[in-house]
């Protein structure tokens, strides 16, 4: 079930909230905790199974296996053995479902594919449980949650599908509170949810349609000219930001309605001063996971700093998908982080606007291999971006500004731009200006004043209604595939 569907908004969510409230009252003075948790688990399993109920057993088995392993880690005299077993089990499941075909294709391309369907959100719920096992091993004296609390934490539908990757210690205590609806929390949560809905349905999907045209042409090996390539890449950079940040906002808002506070996952990443700052603002919970559970255990910045950075970022790339393009994206970010670390050691800080521009350019260009799965697509897109295929502009623009004829060839339409219509160039230009103004000049919704949030809602709510209930096609969240 998608957060953006009428079924979720008008059906599932009101029922889930009402059931949560009723379950909370059932327990009387105790707050009806088991009933609340049971209700949350049941609702979350319905939410998860709606897409493909055949993947429910994997999720349930994963919970039923990890909880006793964590108990053994806490109790046993050989906790490292149990931790190793738990990690092997979780990573093994992930490897089988997500990476087996990738490994097969890499090692033995002639062998037929295994054809295993990738269970929805397997990366998220696996990493979530790895966090739990490692945290338990690090602090065995910490109070251990009951199976019910643990299951409610893992399956809690706002973060089950695409995060944020929340620390068990942050969320499980909140689940132990009585389940009662709070009008202020509902209002806050609904406001954040609606603003996230707008970012996803109105902005991300619009930029997605522009990006799709250009990247589809690149993957088909067609020639992209300078503006076609740049507009597609800039559109994709906006699409993935609005898509994922919008999803995270919706998750935060939904959790708030159930009295749960999730950590911030996006903090205006394209406003980052440098690449390290970018990773403190982009997918914050994944960055924190990689830092805490991969980078620091590898040695952090104490020794082999560059190698640790590269290994961590390559893993980040691989986490996003089983493909060389994702590894290339992770490696690209690893190189940028390493260069940044080396530059910092020189102690010659760049002027802030220059640092921000270089960072933004690096991040935007890194989206090309992330978006394009083929060498053909990547090379076609970079050829266009670098101007190797020339610059074309609509004839009406060149006619209006004749000096442009010196640098651009006038054409009737640009076939890989927007809908390839006469007015597609001004249309995409205006939309990109709007999108980049929003991400570069405005605060994100978590930094907005309450008044600004209400203005944002006023400007976007009706467009969200249009997109959810009337647009014939709403694209699924990009991060569902991860």
């Amino acid at each position, binding site marked *: 079930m998608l957060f953006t569907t009428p079924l979720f908004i008008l059906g599932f969510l009101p029922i889930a909230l009402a059931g949560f409230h009723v379950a909370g009252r059932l327990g009387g003075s105790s707050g009806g905790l088991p009933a609340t948790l049971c209700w949350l688990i049941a609702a979350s399993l319905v939410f998860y199974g709606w897409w493909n109920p055949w993947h429910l057993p994997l999720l349930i088995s994963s919970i039923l296996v990890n909880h006793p392993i964590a108990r053994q880690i806490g109790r046993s005299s050989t906790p490292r053995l149990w931790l190793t077993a738990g990690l092997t089990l979780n990573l093994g499941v992930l490897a089988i479902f997500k990476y087996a075909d990738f490994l097969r294709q890499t090692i033995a391309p002639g062998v037929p594919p295994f054809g295993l369907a990738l269970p929805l959100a397997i990366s998220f719920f696996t990493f979530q449980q790895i966090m739990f096992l490692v945290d338990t091993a690090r602090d065995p004296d910490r109070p251990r949650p009951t199976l019910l609390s643990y299951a409610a934490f893992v399956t809690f539908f706002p973060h089950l599908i695409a995060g944020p990757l929340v620390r068990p210690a942050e969320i499980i205590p909140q689940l132990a509170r009585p389940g009662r609806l709070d009008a202020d929390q509902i209002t806050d949560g609904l406001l954040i949810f609606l603003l996230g809905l707008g970012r996803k349905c109105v902005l991300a999907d*619009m930029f997605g349609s522009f990006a799709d045209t250009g990247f589809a042409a690149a993957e088909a090996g067609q020639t992209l000219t300078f503006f076609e390539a740049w507009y597609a890449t800039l559109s994709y950079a906006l699409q993935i930001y609005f898509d994922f940040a919008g999803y995270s906002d919706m998750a935060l808002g939904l959790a708030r309605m159930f009295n749960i506070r999730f950590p911030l996952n996006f903090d205006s990443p394209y406003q980052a001063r440098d690449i390290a700052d970018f990773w403190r603002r982009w997918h914050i919970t994944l960055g924190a996971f990689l830092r805490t559970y991969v980078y620091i255990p590898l040695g952090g910045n104490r020794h082999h700093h560059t190698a640790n950075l590269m290994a961590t970022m390559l893993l980040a790339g691989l986490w996003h998908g089983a493909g060389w393009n994702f590894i290339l994206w992770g490696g690209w970010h690893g190189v940028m982080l390493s260069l940044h670390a080396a530059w910092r050691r020189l102690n010659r800080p760049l002027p802030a606007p220059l640092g921000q521009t270089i960072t933004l350019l690096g991040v935007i260009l890194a989206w090309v291999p992330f978006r394009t799965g083929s060498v053909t697509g990547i090379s076609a897109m970079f050829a266009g971006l670098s101007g190797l295929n020339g610059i074309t502009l609509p004839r009406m623009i060149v006619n209006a500004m004749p000096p442009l004829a010196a640098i651009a060839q006038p054409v*009737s339409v640009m076939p890989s731009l927007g809908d390839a219509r006469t*007015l597609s160039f001004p249309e995409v230009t*205006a939309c990109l200006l709007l999108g980049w103004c929003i991400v570069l000049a405005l605060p994100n919704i978590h930094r907005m004043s309450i008044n600004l949030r*209400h203005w944002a809602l006023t400007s*976007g709510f009706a467009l969200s209604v*249009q997109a959810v209930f*009337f647009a014939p*096609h709403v694209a699924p969240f990009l991060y569902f595939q991860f």
Partner: protein
Amino acid sequence: MRRLLLCCASSLAIYLLLFAGILDRPLTLGALQARIDANLARGQQIEGPKLVIIAGSNGPYSHRCETIEPILGLPCVNAGVAVGVGLDYLFARWETQLHKGDIVYLPLEEAQYARQHASAALGPDAAIMLRHDRTTLAAMPWHRITAAVFTGDLRGLVMSMIEMTLNHDGFHDPRASLTGTVNAWGDHVGHTPALGQPNQDVLARFMPYHPDGAQITNGYGSTLIARFLDTARARGITVIGGLPTGFADSPIAAEALDAIRTLYRAHATPFLALPNLSRYPRTAFFDSADHLNEQAQQTHSVAVANALAAMLDTIPTSTQAILYPTPMPASNPTPMPASNPTPMPASNPTPMPAMPPPAVTASLSGPMP
């Protein structure tokens, strides 16, 4: 919560005010609306029976009423506009202009049969009705009205501002010089092979999408067409189904073709299928898989006209009594300024060597007398 609800209500009010009262798209939707209005005006001018071609853009690009009219001896209006314009809207607009004895030829694009309910309600006609044609909108079912009210998205908002600015500044629309223009019959003219030459590379690679038989049968478009067929028959209007033009190397799937034929047969409507099933080599097309170039348009129109003439001889329509006792000479419609902004010179009727010979016989799948 009260403030949040107030924001939501204000947002909806501002949205309605903008899209229903202020924003407009004079260069795109305005052009479509002008085309529809001009066609209707021509239909209104014709007294007595007429042939009306209703389709998507393959109507005006691939069919030429100017050619068909003298062959049939029947005034003709090319009322096809664009594949995205809702059929219910076109049928509703033409309902008042169609009379007993009229003939409607429907070489509809496959997509028009297969269109789904949701996308059909959000075509360009929704915005046209909301902004300029609320009379037709008011007569539509409630779901269509609601969808029309919520047809505007962010892209529409941005494009409206661009188009309104360009229109205000006297923007010279380059489309006439790029694709040709429209004559008084509603035919697209001037889309010569030479003008279409730059599109040949794209056309050579283009892979048309064909809906399958189930999509045709279950499409919301098919429901609308069936409803129109029944209404027209009840009013003494002869409807003849037909096939859109397309690439010879990318035919309509046999099951989809069967589904189209079955739709007409089920509603006692004759169906015209030329021996070549309206398929032509890619080089005969102008800028898309639906648009023949002007030469091929004329060749195809001759074939359609001859087939229609043969077919009308066999169909007992109320037109026959009116039409054939006194065959009408080729009409000379008064050019309408709105529909013919830049008249094109008479096109060159040189036969195309790559084209198959024009078909002069039709296969009838409709009810025979």
